[in-house]
């Protein structure tokens, strides 16, 4: 465990944990993480309703709690209390397993999400690959959910969902590979640390290919999380509600929760990959600058740094989250053929070209960003041509 | 022996890569096939330019840097030997350029697009093979291979009488090839089958040996070199085509699709004269000198006879086909001179005729796409075209450039080569020069007369619907226009390439005079 919440805590407190301690701390951290993200997912539903209402000049939920902020809790309680109805012809085992698979796939990715330099459950050295691997469970879950309901709407929704997820995984993976190429590592912290706090140090502005790559990636994750305009699997008008037509109660809420958390996680990952993740400008995140200015105990500086990083990460993530919701309520849904051709005829070739282009860029310019190049050019020409 | 560069291999096999690529493109994707072929020929053109840039003008022999030599069939000392010198280099440039343009000009072909382009690229590779091979066997293989795509290209995509023309073309050329094959085998045995007995370069060393030899033919003792020179001569003369063997040309040209006519006139005819310069002349210098007057006379007949025949034609394409006969006569005449000016002029004329006649055929192709006939005067006596100058202004300008280049207007490319040929031939055959100059006169006459009948006067009713050249057509005419004008004003780029090799051939031949 080279860098994780456990090691961070031990560093903070200057205390050597035994493995049992570590295990317990780890367990607690995991528990917290899961619950916090469930909260975020719940708030996501609220945000979705509120923002959509805003976009449509409506009020949105406003009864439960201040500004209706507790609406999601009310909904959650209602769903918990409802009965899970299993259709007679359904494949019962799979019917019950599939929401869990979905949720498990999403939660598993939380393990490597770098919320701040300290607040990361475990920093796997194959972090981004791990994300790709476990998030594919969501696809299986959706597919099985569709299949096991034994309803044609669910069936079609499930197949569409799975097909969409695995096909959009191609451009997304290619984009990730190109970022990995720039960073030179698969670990999430490496990816973040290779970038800087200021926008021109982010990978999105590193070179033109990465700039294009960001949009490809973003479109890809929209499709992967079955969000509008790629929400064909749950198209209300065609498929009633897609793969979760037959679900009710807690099983349904698992699906819904999985979706919202997935959007959050993916937004977080795209922020990590392209927008500098938790990085704060001027290396404030490490706390050393704060310490040297403020003085005082070291952990205060570090703590403030962590908070700043937390803020940076969530700002970026929620901005993207907002964009996702904004897109959902703005753009019309695609047809299936458009969806497929978008993926295979446009995004995939573009991302392949981007990959080659980034490789070439790395080779030609020795990994310097475009701003560095311009700066060095200006320097050399302005400085009397040294 | 092998040089440092693999460029010739790339040039030779790049079209084959293109063919393979075409074979995996689905049938329905005609556009992809076209773009792919275009890209392929463009890459080949780029490679050729690279070759040109690497070409050392100072060398009079083969360019050692590019030579590729490896054993192919070891038992018979047959090598895979590619090399380029000043004689073949202009032809390579011409081939690369013309094939690139031909892909563009065949854009509208809709019948079995894949097959068409595959065969076209295949043909390109074979043509490169002929110009690059320095091994007689390899040369012969490519010489024959070239016939196959040509046969199908004429036979499938040609005009209404295409099968006849294709078969005629094939049989004629094949007849010549057989004689050449006999010659090749005879040479192999005459050298005793030793090492490099198929090498075109090594065979030159045996030239003196051939002069003394006799061969028994139907019980008569015939001089070896003279007999097989005649064999080779017929083999190559059919390709040129020289007078009694020329009748396949009008048929093939009239029936072939535009691009194929361009290739046929622009490149394939030059293979015949190239064969003379590469094989017949250096290997049998004694016989060459002995027969030089015959060659000159045949060339003269070509010039005058071709020009007269051209003047009587009412089909534009046939007219240009005969004009090719006439112009290739100049090449023959220049070669018969065996002087530096004459031979350089002949090789330059090969190149220049390639560009100017290609322009003419391309232009006729453009017109044919609009009119679907080619009659200057229809068989019933009515005008086929008229007033095109008013109707198609840009086309007319390009046509004028092509026409005047073809008739040898100074400032355009044809003049320099013709002047050099005349200069070369004058010192030897003054009378023939005077008669050949008459060919120049008639050459101008039939072209101008054709131009007048087609372009001047009131617009004929059916011509009123024709549209002027579009951007694609202008695009592919531009390189040729530029070549014709630039090499007319400044011929040194091409002459510098060729003069070393050609002059060394002249020196070689001069020993036997």
């Amino acid at each position, binding site marked *: 465990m080279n860098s994780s919440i456990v090691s961070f805590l031990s560093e903070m407190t200057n205390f050597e944990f035994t493995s049992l301690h570590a295990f317990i701390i780890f367990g607690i951290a995991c528990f917290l993480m899961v619950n916090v993200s469930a909260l975020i997912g719940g708030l996501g539903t609220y945000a979705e309703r509120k923002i959509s209402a805003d976009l449509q000049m409506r009020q949105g939920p406003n009864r439960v709690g201040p500004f209706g902020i507790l609406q999601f809790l009310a909904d959650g309680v209602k769903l918990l209390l409802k009965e899970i109805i299993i259709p007679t012809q359904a494949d019962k085992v799979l019917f019950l397993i599939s929401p869990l698979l979905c949720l498990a796939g999403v939660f598993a990715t939380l393990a490597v999400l770098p919320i701040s330099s300290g607040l990361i459950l475990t920093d796997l050295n*194959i972090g981004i690959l791990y994300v790709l691997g476990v998030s*594919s469970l969501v696809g299986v879950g959706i597919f099985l959910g569709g299949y096991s309901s034994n309803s044609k709407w669910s069936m079609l929704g499930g197949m569409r969902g799975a097909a969409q997820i695995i096909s959009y995984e191609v451009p997304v993976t290619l984009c990730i590979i190109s970022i990995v190429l720039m960073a030179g590592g698969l670990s999430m912290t490496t990816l973040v640390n290779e970038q800087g706090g200021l926008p021109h140090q982010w990978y999105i502005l590193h070179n033109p290919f990465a700039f294009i790559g960001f949009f490809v990636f973003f479109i890809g994750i929209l499709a992967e999380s079955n969000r509008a305009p790629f929400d064909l699997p749950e198209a209300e008008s065609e498929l009633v509600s897609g793969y979760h037509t037959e679900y009710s109660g807690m099983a349904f809420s698992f699906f819904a929760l999985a979706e919202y958390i997935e959007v959050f996680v993916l937004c977080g990952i795209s922020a990590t990959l392209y927008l500098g993740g938790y990085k704060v400008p001027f290396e404030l995140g490490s706390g050393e600058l704060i310490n040297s200015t403020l003085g005082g105990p070291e952990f205060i500086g570090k703590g403030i740094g962590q908070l700043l990083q937390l803020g940076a990460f969530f700002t970026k993530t929620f901005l993207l989250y907002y964009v996702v919701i904004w897109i959902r309520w703005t753009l019309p849904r695609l047809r299936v053929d458009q969806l497929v051709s978008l993926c295979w005829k446009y995004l995939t070739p573009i991302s392949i070209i981007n990959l080659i282009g980034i490789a070439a860029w790395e080779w030609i310019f020795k990994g310097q960003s475009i701003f560095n190049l311009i700066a060095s050019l200006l320097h050399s020409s302005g400085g009397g041509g040294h | 022996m092998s040089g440092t560069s693999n460029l010739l291999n790339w040039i030779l096999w790049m079209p084959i890569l293109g063919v393979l690529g075409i074979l995996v493109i689905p049938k329905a994707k005609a556009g992809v096939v076209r773009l792919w072929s275009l890209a392929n020929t463009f890459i080949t053109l780029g490679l050729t330019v690279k070759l040109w840039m690497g070409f050392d003008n100072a060398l009079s022999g083969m360019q050692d840097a590019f030579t590729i030599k490896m054993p192919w069939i070891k038992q018979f000392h047959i090598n895979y030997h590619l090399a380029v010198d000043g004689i073949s280099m202009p032809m390579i440039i011409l081939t690369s350029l013309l094939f690139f343009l031909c892909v563009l000009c065949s854009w509208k072909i809709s019948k079995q697009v894949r097959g068409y382009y595959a065969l076209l690229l295949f043909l390109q590779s074979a043509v490169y093979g002929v110009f690059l091979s320095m091994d007689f066997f390899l040369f012969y293989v490519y010489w024959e291979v070239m016939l196959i795509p040509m046969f199908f290209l004429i036979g499938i995509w040609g005009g209404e009488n295409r099968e006849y023309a294709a078969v005629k073309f094939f049989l004629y050329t094949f007849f010549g090839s057989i004689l050449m094959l006999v010659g090749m085998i005879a040479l192999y045995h005459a050298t005793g089958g030793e090492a490099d007995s198929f090498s075109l370069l090594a065979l030159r060393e045996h030239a003196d040996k051939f002069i003394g030899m006799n061969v028994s033919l139907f019980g008569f003792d015939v001089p070896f070199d003279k007999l097989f020179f005649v064999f080779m001569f017929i083999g190559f003369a059919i390709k040129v085509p020289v007078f009694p063997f020329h009748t396949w040309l009008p048929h093939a040209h009239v029936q072939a699709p535009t691009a194929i006519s361009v290739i046929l006139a622009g490149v394939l005819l030059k293979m015949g004269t190239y064969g003379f310069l590469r094989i017949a002349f250096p290997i049998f210098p004694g016989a060459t000198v002995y027969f030089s007057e015959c060659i000159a006379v045949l060339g003269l007949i070509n010039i005058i006879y071709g020009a007269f025949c051209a003047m009587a034609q009412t089909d534009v394409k046939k007219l240009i086909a005969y004009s090719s006969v006439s112009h290739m006569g100049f090449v023959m005449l220049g070669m018969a001179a065996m002087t530096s000016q004459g031979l350089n002029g002949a090789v330059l004329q090969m190149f220049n005729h390639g560009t100017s006649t290609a322009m003419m055929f391309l232009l006729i192709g453009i017109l044919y796409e609009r009119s679907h006939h080619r009659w200057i005067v229809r068989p019933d006596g009515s005008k086929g075209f008229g007033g095109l100058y008013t109707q198609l202004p840009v086309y007319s300008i390009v046509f004028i450039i092509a026409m005047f280049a073809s008739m040898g207007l100074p400032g355009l490319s044809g003049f320099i080569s013709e002047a050099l040929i005349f200069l070369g031939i004058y010192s030897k055959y003054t009378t023939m020069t005077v008669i050949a100059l008459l060919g120049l006169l008639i050459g101008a006459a039939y072209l101008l007369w054709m131009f007048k009948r087609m372009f001047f006067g009131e617009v004929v009713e059916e011509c009123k619907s024709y549209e002027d050249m579009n951007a694609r057509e202008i695009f592919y005419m531009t390189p040729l226009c530029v070549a014709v004008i630039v090499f007319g004003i400044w011929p040194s780029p091409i002459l510098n390439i060729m003069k070393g090799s050609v002059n060394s051939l002249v020196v070689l031949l001069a020993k036997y005079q």
Partner: protein
Amino acid sequence: MFIDIMFILSALLTLGGAFGVVASKNIMHACIYLLGSLFGVAGLYATLGADFLAAMQLVVYAGGIIILMLFAIMLTGGHKEAVNKFGLDKIPSMGSVKTFLIGSFSSLIIGSVVLKIIASIINSHDGSGKLPEFSSSVEKIGTLLVTDHVLSFEISSVLLLGALVGAAVISRPRKQ
């Protein structure tokens, strides 16, 4: 201890999945069992310190192959008609007692052969189970792939391309 727990869990998952694949009468369930088994193998890889391999196992199998299998089952399955137009069984048999007997017998034969081969290794191994220190394998694998194994790497890429094109060509519905 942690490693042991992990190994036992993974092995159980693997073997349980494999058993499920053998025993399940429902092809869909068999597929899910296979997924479990593959996850178990990924766990075993992780136990062995092959982190990259484990991740790839997840990515390729869970993300790709299993979903592909599920698709294939959906596209070919359906339990509606028993007999097709050729008069053949439309429901694919999941095997009868007879076939399972033959299968078991065959596996016994092959098992004995394999055992004969690996017995010497097992015997010679001291069984101490000392695992070398873990170190990340990603970079080394990457280096190996483009140095020592570059040819096989390229060939496998060509193979994948071929498989891609081939699969697309084969499964394309032919125009009548």
